[in-house]
């Protein structure tokens, strides 16, 4: 039994082994190309013990390991994706050896080709929208409450306003979504990030990924720029990403 497993980063097309010559993968091993019938798998050897089933489940809860692995995975697909058509794989997809990967490629070549076709000429962009808190109240310093009752009234009013502003923000976010969707080939929603995860104090009201034809990126830029002073929401864009959120058509393939 070999000490290594074959980790698969992405499916790709038209990749020359020289294109990955300098790339290091998860655990630092050199990245290689396994090709079969026009679809290539981008792989590297990883330590077998590290990826044994149980070890991995434990490791997925090990934030440092998860971070390092996610970044290494991303580095490989992102670097290659700049000049090549790639369909990234989910994190930590491993096979016993190269032969197994070649067999999977041979078996699912048509499905993989179809996935790559859908992604050709397109890139993923992330759009996160946050409610601007307190954006609607311009009253400045409220006078000091003179009584407990007055304080409570003011407090209730403030709460009502913050709810309203969140509803307004959601509505505004839907409008932005419609405008971006009009540019996009596909849309996928991700979970809203908790304020603690996003690092933002304003609550997130939308977290979407859009698959955009590459030539429309400027339109997205213009759209987002035009929203810079939006009173209700703050729009944050990330990308271009390799199409992580849109490379799932092969789900049925085994």
């Amino acid at each position, binding site marked *: 039994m070999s000490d290594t*497993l074959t980790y*698969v980063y*992405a499916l790709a097309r038209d990749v020359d082994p020289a294109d990955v010559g300098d790339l290091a993968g998860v655990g630092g091993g050199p990245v290689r190309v396994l090709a079969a019938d026009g679809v290539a798998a981008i792989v590297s050897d990883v330590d077998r013990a590290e*990826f*044994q*089933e149980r070890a*991995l*489940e434990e490791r*997925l*809860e090990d*934030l*440092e390991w*998860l*971070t*390092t692995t*996610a*970044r290494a995975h*991303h580095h490989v697909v992102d670097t290659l994706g700049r000049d090549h058509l790639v*369909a*990234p*794989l*989910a*994190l*930590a*997809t*491993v*096979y*016993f050896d190269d032969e*197994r990967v070649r067999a*999977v490629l041979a078996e699912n070549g048509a499905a*993989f080709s179809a996935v790559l076709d859908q992604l050709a000429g397109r890139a*993923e962009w*992330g759009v*996160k929208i946050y409610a601007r808190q307190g954006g609607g109240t311009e009253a400045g310093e409220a006078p000091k409450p003179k009584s407990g009752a007055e304080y409570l009234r003011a407090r209730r009013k403030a709460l009502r306003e913050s709810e309203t502003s969140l509803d307004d923000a959601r509505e505004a976010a839907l409008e932005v979504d419609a405008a971006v969707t009009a540019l996009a080939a596909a849309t*996928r929603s*991700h*979970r809203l*990030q*908790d304020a*603690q*995860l*996003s*690092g933002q104090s304003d609550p997130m009201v939308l*977290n979407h*990924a859009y698959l955009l034809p590459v030539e429309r990126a400027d339109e997205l*830029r213009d759209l*987002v720029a035009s929203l810079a002073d939006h009173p209700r929401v703050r729009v*944050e*864009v*990330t*990308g271009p*990403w390799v199409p*992580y*959120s*849109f*490379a*799932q058509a*092969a*789900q049925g*393939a085994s």
Partner: protein
Amino acid sequence: MTGPGSGELEPRATTLFGDEEVALVDLLDRLLAGGVVLAGDLTISLAGVDLVRISLRALITSIAPVERPGTLAARAERGGTQRSGADAPEAVTARELESGRG
């Protein structure tokens, strides 16, 4: 990886476009819920993802939204420093990177 922390200490570009460094949470959104799903030879349950996110939440409260690998453990060990606003100082990151590697 030559020189003292070469490339590691660059402040993250916070512009909307052309971000060199991506936020871990955005990356995990995609890597744990996206990508071509193949069975693989080892069945790896990503059902634990929620647990991951819970641990993430616990840890990320104490750090800037974007961190380099290696700094997390160092910060977690010292119980985390509360991030104050958007100005988590790069110098702190630098020191912690070094101690994290020591």
